[in-house]
């Protein structure tokens, strides 16, 4: 069979039996669930038994890209890693990019499904038809940078996914890196790979991706290039990467002292923010197919860490997280980011956990002896580096940090964590609605089935203070129907966020299933019509904009159902108590959670009402917060509707 868009093959790798099997991709299923996140979740729904220990050989890992990956559609390098994640016990698809997904596709595979556990350290090598499980004992113990460099040296120009010492020690906040420039699998992909003795994956591909209608495909592709060429900020974004959005992000993520204080930002800017960033040497890098590259290698020009080079999606994360932990030097911020990435630890999660510990210490609730004698000093890079090392190797109190909030609940009790943190489904979300208002990014953290995530589909509310007309335009771009848009705008607060988020989620599912990068800078060029053209021309299957949104809704319901099977329900979507307590600015002003347009201080009842509106628009059971039988049947998910009948779910 000739495959268009899709590569056409799946790789099944059983590490216990050391076996490699190639099967043709089921085209009908691939189309029905679009690809990427959708297809992988559908497959995992069959393969993963509920309540499986994430570190057991029975937890499969599915890694792969989407039907647009490997075509010249700009910004389509995305690779998804779908599995049960240990940090939250939830199932979902972490997203990454750089070369691996792209080279895997050109090697001829839509995805690989890894099961079992190897008897000793291995890495998987995929070079077109030649697929091998190779010895990795010489790599075990190495950090992610060393591992990746070793593999690049042997295999030359290839895509690499690697985990570090944190993964080897089954860290629940251990992640991987794709070619050093993209992180993949926050929530413990690194740890799950560690439990399988799987150190890395390597892929090169010399094959081709065919498109069914090249002329039609190229027309849509060229229209995207034309837009990008006309975009006046293109060069700024390449020059500054994600730091280009520092004015927004520094405000939105700038909280510290366990989310009780928003510091004054002026001096931060000079010491560790945008002004400091501009003094670093920098090389811009991009993923395959990207036309607005924003990744970078930065180098510290002077000071204690002079000469250190850090390959990163962006300096921004470390700038913000350094602020949180009291670091006031850009060289130290780079060192923090580099060390974290080498061990393969989720820097966002780690920083939340450490900020919490520091805060308890500063208020006198704990002493250093309560954390096994580890030093507790905010603002000291050496203290942070010690904690990183202990976390990576699960030594002393680092062992509790490696278990994320599950670990801290064992030490401090569930109650304290519930009262004092913004943990939702076992992890804290990055967006604080008391600072930026309860927009889509903030609200979506409640309903995201695998625990709060930085992504929320890049909706019209992605940046602050968008006027309603702009929001309506973005909504139409995202494929929101007029009927749904009218319902979303039917609110005394101008926008019903609960309803709007359903469309943000569909937009995200679409991008993650097709392989399109949903970063704001890329996302902004796409609209539902162009995606419909690209998909239809690439695959030869005509899916209209309405079809695509319907299929995305189907993908979202699979995402939800695989987590319903794990026991997640409405109780896990509740807003954290801290959202209803004020956060202080450095000047002593109190900020309360308000709506996106900052017109009304929101109560718990307001948020619950929007949650109800969310379930209602989704056609889900409001009491349980899960899909109904009718909705699943409507979406062609009859087997999942049957599963709802089982006693466990009711």
């Amino acid at each position, binding site marked *: 069979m000739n495959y268009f868009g899709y590569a056409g093959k799946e790789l099944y790798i059983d590490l216990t039996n050391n076996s490699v099997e190639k099967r043709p991709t089921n085209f009908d299923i691939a189309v029905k669930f679009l690809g990427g996140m959708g297809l992988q979740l559908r497959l995992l729904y069959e393969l993963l038994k509920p309540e499986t220990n994430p570190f057991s050989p029975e937890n499969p890992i599915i890694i792969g890209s989407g039907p647009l990956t490997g*075509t*010249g559609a700009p910004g389509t390098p995305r690779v998804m890693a779908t599995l049960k994640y240990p940090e939250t016990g939830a199932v979902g698809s972490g997203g990454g990019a750089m070369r691996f997904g792209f080279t895997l596709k*050109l090697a001829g595979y839509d995805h690989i499904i890894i099961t079992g556990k190897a008897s000793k350290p291995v890495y998987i090598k995929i070079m077109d038809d030649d697929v091998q499980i190779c010895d990795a004992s010489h790599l075990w113990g190495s950090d992610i940078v060393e591992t990746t460099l070793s593999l690049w040296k042997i295999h030359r120009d290839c895509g690499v996914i690697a985990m570090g010492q944190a993964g080897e020690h089954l860290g629940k906040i251990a992640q991987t890196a794709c070619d050093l420039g993209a992180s993949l699998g926050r929530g413990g992909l690194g740890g799950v790979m560690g439990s399988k003795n799987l150190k890395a994956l390597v892929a090169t591909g010399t094959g*081709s991706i065919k498109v069914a209608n090249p002329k039609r495909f190229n027309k849509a592709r060229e229209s995207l290039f034309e837009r990008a060429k006309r975009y006046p900020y293109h060069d700024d974004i390449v020059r500054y990467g994600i730091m280009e959005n520092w004015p927004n992000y520094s405000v939105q993520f700038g909280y510290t002292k366990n989310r009780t204080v928003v510091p004054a930002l002026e001096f931060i800017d000079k010491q560790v923010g945008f002004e400091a960033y501009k003094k670093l040497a920098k090389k*811009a*890098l991009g993923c395959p*197919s*990207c036309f607005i*590259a924003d990744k970078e290698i930065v180098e510290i020009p002077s000071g204690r860490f002079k000469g250190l080079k850090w390959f990163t999606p962006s300096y921004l994360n470390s700038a913000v997280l350094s602020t949180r932990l009291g670091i006031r030097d850009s060289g130290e911020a780079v060192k923090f980011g580099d060390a974290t990435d080498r061990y393969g630890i989720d820097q966002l999660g780690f920083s939340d956990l450490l900020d919490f510990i520091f805060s308890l210490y500063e208020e006198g609730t704990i002493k250093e002896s309560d954390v096994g004698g580890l030093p507790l000093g905010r603002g000291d890079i050496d203290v942070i580096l010690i904690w990183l090392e202990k976390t990576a190797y699960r030594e002393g109190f680092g062992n509790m940090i490696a278990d994320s909030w599950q670990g801290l609940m064992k030490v401090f009790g569930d109650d304290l964590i519930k009262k004092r943190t913004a943990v939702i489904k076992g992890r804290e979300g990055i967006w604080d609605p008391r600072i930026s208002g309860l927009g889509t990014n903030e609200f979506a953290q409640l309903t995201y089935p695998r625990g709060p995530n930085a992504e929320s589909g890049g909706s019209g509310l992605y940046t602050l203070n968008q006027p309603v007309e702009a929001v309506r335009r973005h909504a139409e771009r995202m494929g929101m129907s007029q009927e749904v848009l009218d319902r979303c705008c039917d609110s005394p607060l101008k926008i019903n966020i609960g309803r709007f988020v359903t469309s943000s989620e569909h937009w995200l599912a679409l991008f993650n299933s097709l392989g399109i990068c949903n970063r704001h800078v890329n996302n902004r060029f796409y609209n539902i019509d162009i995606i419909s053209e690209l998909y239809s021309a690439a695959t030869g299957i005509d899916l209209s904009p309405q079809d695509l949104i319907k299929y995305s809704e189907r993908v979202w319901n699979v995402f939800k159902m695989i987590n319903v099977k794990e026991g997640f329900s409405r109780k896990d979507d509740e807003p954290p108590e801290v959202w209803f307590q004020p956060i202080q600015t450095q000047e002593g002003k109190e900020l309360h959670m308000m709506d996106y347009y900052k017109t009304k201080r929101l109560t718990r009842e307001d948020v619950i009402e929007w949650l109800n509106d969310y379930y209602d628009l989704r056609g889900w059971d409001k009491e349980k917060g899960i899909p109904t039988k009718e909705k699943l049947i409507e979406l062609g998910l009859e087997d999942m509707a049957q599963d709802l009948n089982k006693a466990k779910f009711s």
Partner: protein
Amino acid sequence: MKRIILFNPEKCVGCKQCALSCSFIKEQSFSLGKARNKTLWVYKKNMSVPISCQHCEKPLCLDVCPTGAILRNEYTGAIVINDERCNGCKACIEICPFDAVIWDVDLGCVIKCDLCGGDPECVKHCLYGTLSWVEADEAAISQKRSGVDYLAEVMTELKET
């Protein structure tokens, strides 16, 4: 005046749109193995390096070809292949310092960049300023030569390791 592609390798981010565009215009599919150009990740330099035919002033491939299958297009200045004359000896592939000549296993002959007849697709899809299509005046040719020196250095290093 003829035009040439100027390479500015420091600006290359490794997006591969040059190769994706080349394979698409020539093959109507995305077949990087058949693109007449490529970007190579040179990890030692932390750089992505765009590699393509330089349409040399003194082309080694043209000189070494035993059947006269390689010639210069008078209009564009590009070094091109007459596939009917190619006997598949691959001497041109061996001798090119830029690995710019490729064996097409389906056609049974060599393929290479022909500047798309004077309207190169790669340049149109490079949004980073790595590739530019400029008039071949003295300044451009001088800049091109230094770019070529750098490429040759990278290729030699790659072949040695």
